[in-house]
């Protein structure tokens, strides 16, 4: 196996069965990996032989092989023999069993005697775990294995971690059906990419997420809003399952923020959000990644109605600091606007990003000047808000957590400059009588725009939008994310 490195020299690695090659890239470097012989996969997505795969934007990943196989000059690289992949594979098989039973049930095929008492519920999995436990990676792996099974499964991947962003920008909670393996090449789009106007070979690079805007990185900032969004997502997922009975059999996997597992917030709040997920998505399996106490807690609360399984944490998980996460948010917004751009290492003339040609992943956003009145901008809740529990007894908020407050761009200190705004989908009911006060909380996101300039005297602002579509007359919501190129 070989690869070609960030510096011009290339290095060949031979991996023994069930080992993985791990690497961590420094900012501004990239790595190309080419599979020369055998089979290998990156978080469950198989590599095609003899195609250079690019990694960049401080990507930290691992190339695993079941049967021996791999490859650069990353800042850290090593081969690990201890991986929890066997356990993950068992999970996959267990979930596949649930899927085939669900499909059998749907098709009304005969059920053998010994299978009678088995449930025909498809796997609906919630992943919980502390920070840096590899939750998202496990989700991705399980999803990738499911779509690779060759059975046409397209499970839903639901991201409830606002810091992660997923296909949208950070600050959003989203759900998308996955049809082909999710590539890994950059933390800029950890779960594949949302659809663009470019032709893409992999549907994972053209996902159709349903996203709601939370607007902050931490779930404790506005748990009420978070809960509402989770329930909104759940409702739509269930609607989708009503329509698509066969799609339902593939199940779903919910990734969660680490704050669900532990953290300074009150335990009640965590429990409430977990419960919101369990109810909204009709969870029947909870996976707890390497957290004994949480496992016990979940067993106690949910063991009567669903399966709680503790799964091992991979030794390859990297401790991520706050600054790294900040940079990842920047990568994600850059990727949203400009597409995935990773300069290949010298000596690599053409490579692919998870099987995609590079040129197709470059996007051109559009910068336009609009009037202040063209866009109605809101903030949900007050700008800084202490949790309700922290308020003095008897004190009421001036602004409730879920109240939409209109923002006037003409006011100094509106906080709009460089802010990431979520442009909401137009309301379904155009009939005024059907509208309601908090409707803005229940509208999904159409896309994101950035305010790059404010011209208060002329009441105009410059916005960077992902495409040329007009945002005039739309509603946008601000969060706490900012982005500057």
């Amino acid at each position, binding site marked *: 196996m070989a690869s070609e490195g960030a510096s011009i020299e290339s290095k060949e690695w031979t991996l023994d069965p069930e080992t993985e090659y791990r690497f961590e890239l420094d900012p501004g470097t990239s790595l190309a990996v080419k599979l020369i*012989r055998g089979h290998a996969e990156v978080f469950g*997505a*198989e*590599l*095609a032989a*003899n195609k*250079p795969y690019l990694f960049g934007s401080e990507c930290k990943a691992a190339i695993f092989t079941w049967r021996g196989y791999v490859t650069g000059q990353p800042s850290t690289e090593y081969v690990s023999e201890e991986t929890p992949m*066997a356990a993950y594979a*068992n999970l*996959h*098989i*267990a979930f*596949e*069993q649930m899927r085939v039973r669900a*499909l059998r049930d749907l098709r009304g*095929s005969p059920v053998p005697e010994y299978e009678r008492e088995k449930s025909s519920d498809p796997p609906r999995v919630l992943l919980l775990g502390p920070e840096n436990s590899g939750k998202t990676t496990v989700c991705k792996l399980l999803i990738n294995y499911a779509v*690779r099974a*060759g*059975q*046409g499964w*397209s499970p839903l991947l639901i991201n409830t971690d606002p810091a992660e962003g997923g296909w949208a920008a950070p600050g959003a909670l989203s759900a998308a*059906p996955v*049809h082909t393996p999710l590539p890994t090449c950059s933390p800029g789009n950890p779960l594949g990419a*949302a*659809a663009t106007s*470019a*032709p*893409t*070979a*992999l549907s994972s*690079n*053209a996902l*159709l997420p*349903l996203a709601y805007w939370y607007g902050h990185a931490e779930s404790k900032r506005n748990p009420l809003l978070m809960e509402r969004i989770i329930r909104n997502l759940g409702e*739509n997922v269930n*609607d*989708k399952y009503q*329509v*698509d009975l*066969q*799609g339902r059999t593939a199940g779903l996997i919910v990734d969660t923020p680490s704050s669900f597992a532990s953290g300074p917030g009150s335990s009640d709040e965590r429990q409430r959000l977990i419960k919101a997920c369990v109810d909204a998505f009709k969870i029947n399996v909870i996976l707890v990644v390497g957290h004994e106490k949480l496992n016990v807690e979940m067993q106690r609360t949910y063991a009567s109605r669903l399966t709680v*399984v503790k*799964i*091992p944490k991979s030794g390859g998980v990297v401790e991520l600091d706050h600054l790294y996460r900040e940079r990842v948010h920047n990568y994600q917004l850059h990727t*949203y*606007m400009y597409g995935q751009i990773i300069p290949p290492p010298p000596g690599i003339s*053409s490579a*692919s990003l*998870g*099987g995609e040609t590079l040129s197709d992943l470059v*996007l051109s956003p*559009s910068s336009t000047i609009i009037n202040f009145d063209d866009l109605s901008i809101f903030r949900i809740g007050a700008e800084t808000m202490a949790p309700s529990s922290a308020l003095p007894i008897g004190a009421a908020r001036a602004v409730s957590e879920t109240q939409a407050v209109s923002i006037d761009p003409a006011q100094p200190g509106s906080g709009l400059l460089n802010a990431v705004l979520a442009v909401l*989908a137009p309301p379904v009911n155009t009939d005024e009588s059907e509208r309601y006060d908090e409707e803005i909380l229940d509208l999904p*996101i*159409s*896309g994101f725009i950035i305010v790059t300039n404010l011209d208060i005297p002329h009441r105009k602002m410059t916005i960077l939008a*992902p*495409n*040329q*579509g007009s945002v005039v007359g739309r509603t946008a919501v601000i969060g706490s994310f900012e982005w500057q190129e």
Partner: protein
Amino acid sequence: MYSQQQYGPPPSFQQPSYGSYPSYYQPPPPPPVPVYQPDPVTFRRDYSNQLAELKVNSRPIIQNLSMIAQEFARFSEIVAQCLESHIRRVPQWMKLPAFYLLDAISKNVYEPYARNFAAFVVPLFLETYSQVDQSTRSKMEEMLLTWRTGSPAGKELFGVPAQMAIERGVWGDGASSSPVGRAPSAGLPAINNRPAQTNSFYSGSGQITKTQVLTELEFTLNQKERALQGNLYDTTLQTHISVLHQLRKLVEAGVSQEELQQILTQLRSLVRSVAAPTPTPAPPPPPPAVAPSVSWPPAQQPSYPPQQPTFPPAPAPTYPSFPTYDNVKTEPPPSVLPSASAAASGSSAQNSILSLLSTIKKVVGENGTPLGAGASSGEDVKLEPPPPDLERESSRSYRDAILMHDVKLSSTDIIRKRPDVVEFLYDRLAAQCKQCGIRFPDTVFGKKRMEDHLDMHFKQNRKANQNIGRGHSRSWFVGVEDWVHDVSVDVKGKGREAGARPMNAKATAAAEVAKRDADLRAQYVVVPRGEEANPVACPICKEQFKSEFLDDEEEWVWRNAVLKDERVYHATCHAEAATGLALRLRSELAANLRSHSNTPEAASMGSVAAARAGGVSTPPPSGLKISDALRSVSLSPSPESKLVGTKRKVDDTDHSVSDEAEGTPRLKKMALTAADSMPQ
């Protein structure tokens, strides 16, 4: 028929109509963007490595290898050498797939490979033929038959001498007792010098074995049945098949040498005449690096005439008296059928099928056998086995396999067990897309999906090539309704076509725009009394209103009109001006002018821009001409040349508006609106 169909770069891939001959080859999708530019040594190593994986008859591997061969036609000799040594070296059970690869490359790429392969194909084929078991032999025979018409021109794939040498080696010519032992190359010059003999070779002046006839019969029959699958109601085909079934029964029962020959002749002329009328796509130009072929004349000219029926077709009235045929015949005589394929296969096919019939009649007549099997063979035709539900079949077997495993969802159990996940993720999915690594089961159903998947790559590549230089951008996310109703079933397994869903969103957007437009157009203003004769123009586009009589209102009205501030505007013009759409259109148009300045559209763009400028500044008389020019541009049938092609929304608007009956020149309107609204 089959050879032309699969050859060349057709716009969409069709299932080639082979019989039991494995259907692995279709024209490979165009080569992907080359990811590496190897030197000959690297290429040789890589290619033989990949070749080494060709152990079973795997369509994806063959397809991939032939794609590489196509891509690196400049290394054709290396490919040929690798392939030859591979076939010679591998154990006999691995030889057939390699021959399929040779076959696929020769037919699909043809130049320069067929020429390269011709150098060694005869000894290689015969040597292999002598080593393999009976079932492989019959597969090879089937393949050999397709080589007769395998070239793009419908001629022998490797030239007449090679074809004859192989066929002689395989079926013998009655003289040689040990065909394999013969040195075929020694015989070649002689055959070449005696063209008259080629004819007798094919029509079989020597011994025709029953096996040979049966093989060819079987082959033709399979081919027909395949074709029938594609077109269940083709009655001509059905008739052909029933006749062929009968023929097979006859031959199996044993007929004289003379009859064998007649049957064979008819059979071949049937195959040829069916093959001939299919339009042959022009072969792709040979790679410039390849020197023009010198040693290739045999394939360019027919060196033996197509077989003609050697006896007149039986007169139609005679066959109703033939009882067996009546049993078999489920449809009226083919000659009166208006079926599409009857037309396509041409009258020669009709003739030869009639001849075949008469052959049967003759044979039966001579033997005096009543052909008791006739009725059952008729049933054979009718009892087409229903196509099994492959999808369910495959998911059933997957279910059984996955449920075999005893894995409990518990913290201890998942750690303890050694899973056999490799079986499910790799072994059961033997077919892999070499472009993106996605795997498919090596079953009929899986192959079908893999084909779809490769088609998708092909389309994407083509689209990407067409789009070069055009900017892409992130789409808006879909709305809740679209998301909920985006059902997974129809996109199963394959990477779906990019834009399939966005298209839907696009379509809804277009529908909305169209509806809004229609609403606007439905508005009207009653023409004031006495004003009917006075021309009134819209202040925005300066077009005159056309008055028409509205029966419901019993009034003369202006359609698509709205009264604002005591002035009458076109409703559409007014709406546009109000939304600022015109402004945006204009700026985008300008942007397009810049970004497309070196595309072919540039010329027309330029003239439009000029015309537009003229339209703004010149008085109405000359404006008339300009508007004509504009109309021709804005109604141009090619969406590619749309000025606003890259902007979806605007494009849609433009479409719907340019559909309007009056054909108001759109750009002019736009420009003027812009001009009107600019001053503020």
